[in-house]
């Protein structure tokens, strides 16, 4: 059940994504793809190096931001950002 507080948090999250995409100059599709990779790493941590390489290559994160070990909070962030971005694309809140 969505509450007033959660709606506000979602609004802030979407605003943050827009600023983030605009700041790093990354397409929303790239963020969705990295988010999907993050989900895959969460299920199979052996994919973490591939994810890290793709995230850095996409210029979504600087190389030292991600630890050599599995950085689950960062994976959670990318996974969440990817899903929110996917919803925004579906609702045309952001354009491709």
């Amino acid at each position, binding site marked *: 059940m*969505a*509450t007033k*507080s*959660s709606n506000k*948090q*979602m609004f*802030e*999250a979407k*605003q*943050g*994504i827009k*600023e*983030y995409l605009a*700041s*790093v100059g990354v397409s929303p599709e790239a963020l969705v793809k990295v988010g999907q990779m993050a*989900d895959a790493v*969460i*299920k199979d*941590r052996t994919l973490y190096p591939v994810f890290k390489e793709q995230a850095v290559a996409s*210029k*979504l*994160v*600087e*190389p*030292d*931001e991600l*630890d050599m*070990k*599995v*950085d*689950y*909070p*960062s*994976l*959670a*962030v990318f*996974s*969440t*950002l990817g*899903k*929110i971005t996917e*919803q925004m694309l579906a609702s045309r809140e952001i354009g491709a």
Partner: protein
Amino acid sequence: MGKFWRKVKSAFKKVAAVALVVVAIVNPALIPAIGNSILTTVGVAAPSAAAATAAGSAAITTASSLAQGNSLEDSLKAGAVSGVTAYVGISTATSTGSAAIGSAAGSAAGTVVAGGRPEDIIRNAVSGGIGAGVGDAVGSTEFGKTTGVGTAAGKGVGTFIATGGDVKKAIDVAVNTQLIDLANVGYDIYKDKAYKATLSPEQQAAADAQKLVDTSKAQPGTQLADAGTGTMTDAGNQLGEIRVTAGREAGAVENVLPYTSTTVTKPSSAPADTLPEVKVTAQREPAAPENVLPFTVTDSLPEVKVTGQREIVEENQPIPEKSAKEPEKPAEQTPAKTIYPSMYFTGVSPTARTPLNEGLNLSSAAPLPTTGLTSSRGAGEIESKESGKKRQSVWNEESLRLKDALGL
């Protein structure tokens, strides 16, 4: 680091802060998935759904708190509390079958996080009421006292310092070494309480008994309950006799005396055990007149003649004195007895003149002195001292002396 990457870094931190807050809203399944991965990474094989959710919630909450600029300590506390809260929430929904928290495991933690409660949790953590708060949430003060969420945070902080600022290690330590144990304790306490709340006292007793049975089967030799009152004294190496007594088990019993039961059947024609009531009636006798003697008095008594022989009483017979105390005996009617009084001769017969008398010139009128022993008796005759008996011819010293004196 170039300017670009600094810009990316700053942008990432900013978006990460808001993203972590809405993780539970956007992707509830992510929390237990992350928790499961964390626990697996640190060596916890096949963690339960509740534990995985707790770990995931703690990790994300901590990261979210850090991303929002809070201190590591507060962030770890917030993560620990979030994890425990999520754990308890899931346990509640699971054990009671209630969907109050949410159908999905992650939604419970998601509600906590999405409802803006992380801020409240952080404030509570800062104020130092973490353990008590969690204890109240569980409904048991044991939870907060025996474990303490702050311990988990402290472990995380210590690890953070020891590792030179390794956030992930700090979280892993906090989640693994303390939070899981904490959550397990809380879960067990709550599950037991929640389950028992649905049972009647009888069912609770049966459940406790069944638990003891299961424990005994799983762990033979386990002491299931405290022994009864008694005293055991350690006698050192000296073993004493131990006598174990118990009641005989029901079953085949030997040495049972044969018993034959006799059934007495009362015939149908037999009289009843109780006799009918019988009334006895009679005519009342006329009342006897009062003061009537029960015998007849005649006017004259028959004449009675008493006859008997008169007793002869001798005058010289001494009458024995009767003792005053001696009871008076009835007079016996004995035949009259002839009494012979003792008689002594005190003189010489007039016709008995002897030469001695003549020689002594004694007148015949004068009485002769005599001893009285030899008067009118023969030689050697001594008058018997017993009156009434024949004289006996006995010579004794006195008579012999007399005989010699007389020249007989």
